[in-house]
């Protein structure tokens, strides 16, 4: 059963600024078309300033000036009816927020109000969207905390009294207490240690499978995607350059950028020299012509400098935007890394 929950079509979201008469346009999201299915974890990878945060801001319907949607649509198919957040009125968006469309934020330290107890923060978030009476509401929150393996006393605690891992679990709890159909997780584990990170990732996966919702998981760490995502999409300089099932992305990438990202991961048990990609990601205010990856691409040909490669089907369920996708070889063979 692969029903689509979200359809993004030809989405362009630009930051348009006008300072002292100088106009500046930053094309943070440039022509992205994708779908996200029901009950899957979709990983979005990209480095900082690649536009991935702008993209998920649009998905989360948090579009504020100077960002503006220039073209395209973002259509959700929720249980209570379809909605296009690119054009919907604020009142309509309020109606789906938290109940259907939710968001796990980065940096749990600054997300929670430091002078409010966790229980009060839960009330701020969930009381109204859930629409339950006092005792029923309380029971719902307690059940949810139990599922997150958090003790009930956290409701009486202040954020600073909790460890980093617990705080992150609280933010996951806040985002999922209303059993939303669509959850966006923006680098939820970047600041955590390896042991806690694995715990939190496992928890997000468990909750996702429990609720049957779709999760868009954003991080630049490819090893996290390898273990979390069902499908992975790679964003480079505001464009989706490749997407496909996780295993294929790692072992048979069809875009040189993905191939590089995968090959540069160091592994325990393997000390061969890892290549590092030279150069820096392009500025979104003046991106290069043609394929935006061509200045750093080892496979670039003249065509790449002038023509933008379209995102085409290269294998079953696997799309890539590269003129030379047939020549992309995985830089690391799967058998090469042997875990002890």
């Amino acid at each position: 059963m692969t029903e689509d929950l979200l359809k993004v079509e030809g989405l362009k979201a630009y930051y348009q600024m006008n300072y002292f008469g100088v106009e500046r346009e930053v094309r943070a999201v440039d022509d992205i078309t994708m779908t996200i299915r029901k009950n899957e974890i979709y990983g979005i990878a990209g480095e900082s300033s690649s536009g991935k945060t702008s993209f998920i801001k649009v998905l989360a319907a948090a579009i504020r000036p100077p960002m503006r949607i220039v073209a395209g649509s973002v259509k959700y198919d929720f249980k209570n009816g379809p909605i296009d957040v690119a054009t919907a009125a604020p009142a309509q968006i309020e109606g789906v927020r938290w109940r259907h469309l939710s968001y796990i934020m980065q940096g749990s330290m600054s997300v929670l109000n430091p002078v409010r107890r966790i229980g009060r923060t839960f009330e701020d978030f969930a009381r109204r969207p859930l629409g339950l009476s006092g005792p029923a509401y309380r029971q719902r929150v307690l059940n949810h905390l139990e599922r997150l393996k958090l003790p009930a006393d956290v409701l009486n605690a202040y954020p600073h009294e909790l460890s980093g891992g617990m705080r992150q679990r609280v933010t996951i709890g806040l985002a999922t207490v209303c059993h939303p159909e669509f959850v966006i997780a923006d680098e939820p584990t970047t600041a955590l240690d390896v042991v806690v990170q694995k715990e939190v990732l496992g928890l997000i996966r468990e909750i996702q499978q429990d609720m049957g919702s779709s999760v868009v998981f954003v991080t630049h760490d490819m090893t996290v995607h390898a273990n979390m995502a069902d499908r992975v999409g790679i964003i480079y300089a505001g464009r989706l350059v490749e997407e496909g099932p996780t295993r294929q992305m790692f072992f048979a990438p069809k875009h040189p950028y993905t191939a590089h990202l995968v090959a540069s991961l160091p592994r325990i048990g393997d000390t061969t020299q890892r290549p590092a990609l030279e150069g820096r990601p392009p500025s979104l205010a003046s991106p290069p012509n043609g394929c935006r990856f061509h200045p750093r691409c080892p496979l670039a040909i003249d065509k790449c400098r002038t023509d933008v490669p379209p995102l085409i089907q290269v294998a079953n369920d696997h799309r890539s935007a590269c003129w030379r996708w047939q020549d992309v070889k995985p830089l690391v063979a799967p058998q090469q890394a042997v875990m002890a």
Partner: protein
Amino acid sequence: MSTLLDVQNVSKRFTMGGLLSRKTVEAVQDASLSLSVETPEIFTIIGESGSGKTTLARMILGLELPTSGEISFRGKTVSHRVGRQERLEFMAHVQPVFQNPFEAFNPLKRIDRYLESTARRFLKLRHRDDLDAAMDGALQKVGLSLAEARGRFPHEMSGGQLQRAAIARALIPNPSLLVADEPVSMVDASLRMSIVNLLKSLRDDLKVSVIYITHDLATAYYISNRLIIMQRGRIVEMGDARTVLDNPEHPYSRLLKASVLSTEDAGSGKLLTDPGMAERATALIRQQGKLVARADGRSVRVYDGV
């Protein structure tokens, strides 16, 4: 064989609270390690937050004084309570690289001003040409050039470039030891390897020893010669990086290794750690134990009755 850095039974205790509620935190307990002058190496300190790895690094830099034990660099005790001249001399030999390059640089100062003031202070250069040559030399070592960096503000560079500029600054006085505290954790994945490869080439080509602090076992395995694994202030395992990480012996080291996400089974969604493993590791926190040398050259903390 002479020692470059010698850390002898060092402990650091922090006291928190006032008269009524005094709490002490044992940040580092009885840590010993030494680096030799002849063989430059990358020495890695692994541990999660709160394991005392940063405190140990601060003591090596002379920013904190140990509560007990002694740290000596080339035979001299490390301390910030010395004369200015002596302190500067020490700083010329031991340089830090910090975690977040965006915070390490003042956003209102140009990059080259940092490099210049370091060159003025440590190399005692006065002439424009000499200063430029020293700055360019250091930047070349990290794959940048003065032409690229001159006049640029921190926000005009990418995280990877900025971290390399931070390393270039540390290299200006020709130090024999770099202390890098999580130098790659704030850098994007695609640029991470350029920093890690750079540290490797500093060791191999410039013969600089590096103390590399991290919680990322994969990069530690990739570049380091020796490592220590710390848990709540105690060294629990120490030895050759490959020997230890290929087959960790202490329960905490095993837990760390098991928590490293691998790309091997990409897509299969295996995320469960054996819960018994975490229990075994945390159960040992309160126990003292002692480090015992093993036949393969590593030392492991063992406990009575376990």
